[in-house]
């Protein structure tokens, strides 16, 4: 196990460097091709050149290489890595540290992601098990169709509809009623409510998680069906175990291995998806930060936050890989 973890850790380093470089390359190219974001801050009427130059210097945008399209700006990359190592992911165009902004907002996104993950795994696995046990029956077809339909529906449409019909109609009704408990109304809120840091994220979390629901349900279904045919299930039956135990303990544990792998990939989807969900539901998380930065052309924020998110994603993947090893002893002793 120790060696496995160590090897994953070591593999992690070139990958993260490579990903950061890719990101650096893209952002550099953007500045080279599209133009200087500092200039864009001031609209049609350019401020005195001295002001612009000062700002360029403040934001490390004064490197000559940024004016040569195609130049990978290796020097800048090295500088950036040094800053990243020190926890400095730049400042936004209003002088606030990206790291600080990120840390302030990250807990909200983490909560949202956790709710989405819990929703999609619990419901997804339940649906998958149901479909797997009732293969080719109505329940199976229903689950397959339903989850695919969710995939097909763009998140932003789904989110808007959920916000409007659940949050604003049903939820408002509940919040204004005397009989409904407070938590219920908050669970179906139209947006984030800082007084209910978890509950008010439930509806957006469900919207966010619904996209991956299909994949999890399908993965569970497929691997459950496969595992139900396996020899060790036959052994478990020969041991006189109850069906519930055979499915719930013997088969499910094995079937969850691909699901866990998928969750690793899914964290990336969720972090990206949080952009849309947080935008629609006005949730003060990291996704909203990116959303706002896009609107205000705050390039340093976009690059800084995407960089941190990429690191978060890679670290999460690393953790998932280790969890994977914990689930599957065959990997552990590789």
């Amino acid at each position: 196990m120790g060696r496995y973890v160590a090897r994953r850790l070591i593999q992690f380093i070139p990958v993260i460097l490579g990903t950061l470089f890719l990101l650096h390359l893209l952002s550099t190219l953007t500045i080279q091709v599209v133009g200087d974001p500092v200039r864009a801050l001031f609209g049609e009427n350019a401020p005195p050149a001295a002001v612009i130059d000062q700002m360029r210097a403040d934001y490390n945008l004064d490197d000559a290489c940024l004016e040569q399209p195609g130049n990978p700006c290796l020097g800048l990359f090295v500088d950036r890595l040094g800053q990243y190592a020190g926890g400095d992911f730049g400042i936004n165009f209003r002088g606030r540290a990206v790291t600080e902004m990120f840390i302030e907002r990250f807990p909200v996104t983490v909560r949202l992601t956790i709710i989405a993950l819990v929703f999609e795994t619990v419901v997804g696995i339940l649906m998958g098990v149901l479909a797997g046990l009732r293969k080719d029956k109505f329940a199976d077809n229903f689950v397959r169709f339903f989850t695919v339909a969710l995939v097909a529906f763009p998140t932003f449409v789904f989110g808007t509809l959920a916000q409007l019909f659940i949050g604003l109609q049903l939820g408002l009704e509940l919040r204004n009623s005397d009989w409904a408990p407070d938590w219920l109304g908050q669970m179906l809120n139209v947006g984030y409510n800082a007084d209910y840091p978890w509950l008010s994220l439930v509806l957006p979390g469900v919207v966010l998680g619904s996209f991956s629901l299909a994949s999890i349900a399908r993965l569970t279904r497929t691997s459950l069906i496969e595992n139900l045919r396996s020899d060790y299930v036959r052994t478990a039956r020969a041991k006189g175990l109850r069906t519930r135990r055979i499915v719930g303990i013997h088969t499910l544990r094995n079937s969850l291995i691909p699901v866990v792998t998928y969750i690793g990939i899914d964290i990336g989807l969720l972090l990206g998806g949080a952009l849309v969900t947080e935008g629609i539901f006005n949730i003060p998380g990291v996704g909203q930060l990116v959303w706002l930065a896009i609107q205000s052309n705050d390039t340093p924020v976009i690059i800084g936050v995407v960089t941190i998110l990429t690191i978060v994603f890679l670290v999460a993947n690393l953790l998932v890989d280790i969890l994977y090893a914990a689930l599957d002893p065959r990997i552990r002793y590789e």
Partner: protein
Amino acid sequence: MSETLTENRKRQPRSPLSGVKFDDSAPLLEVENLQVEFHTRDGIAKAVQGVSFTLNAGETLGILGESGCGKSVTAQAIMGILDTPPAKVTGGQVRYRGVDLLQMDEKTRRHVRANKIAMIFQDALSSLNPVFTVGWQLGELYRQHAGASRKEARAKAVELLEMVGIPAARDRVNDFPHQFSGGMRQRVMIAMALALQPDIIIADEPTTALDVTVQAQVMALLADLQREMQLGLILITHDMGVVADVTDKICVMYAGHAVEQANVYEIYERPGHPYTKALLESIPRVDQKGEELTAIKGLPPALVNPPPGCSFHPRCAFARDRCKTDEPPLYQLPGNRESACHYWEEVLNS
């Protein structure tokens, strides 16, 4: 068997089996006219068609046959672990101590499976759950069927592993199946089968995947344990050598039928069915160089659409026209043996 295991059995909380009246004077296991069908996309496959045999305590019955002949299905039907659907037991009786298992409710049957009849499978690696330790899988039996605590179950698992000759059992209970060698894994399977002290063990090709020297070890272990505990052992195999070595009587199966049943000595000396005879002639022997092998022509029939009459007739050297139309009954042969061949006398004397 160790003291604690027996004790444990006595302590067992109100087993559903207490309501079932087993007749201790009845034979250990009687299978009568067992019929199993598989519903496949292309039709109904009659996997087992009227298999009958009796197994007494301390006796070893060999079920011999090639792949697809229905021997494993028979075993799984006895255990009650066939996948239903597509499989379905359509007739016959499986009586354990006089009680028909096929009529039991699932809950009672489950307890019979754990406590009375156990099974060992061919591929121990895939038959053990890869994600749980061996100790956990052994202990599960005690926890689920005897209400043992985790600690007790673990202690019992160690005992069992020691009993089947796994060295350093105390440490190895924490290992996962893939960390064991093939032979050791099969020992774990045997330990698991013996855990709740059953009366009958069905071993389905227990040594096929093993090397000969390991096979010898495992067979020796199985034989010792059987003798010691007076178990009824059903050994399912295609290996004529293994059968000859350990069984008391043999049931030969072909295309879902039990074509011949006899005492092990008689069968090898004077086979009473052309299929048995052909099989014996087609295998090379380690102790003789021998001449050219007498191969059986053709292939085993498909179970969905078997040939009419005797299902062996297309490959049979003794076959006549009658064999193509009349399905042979099980003829009673002298010496308490049976053969499903119209011309059994001719075969016996050839």
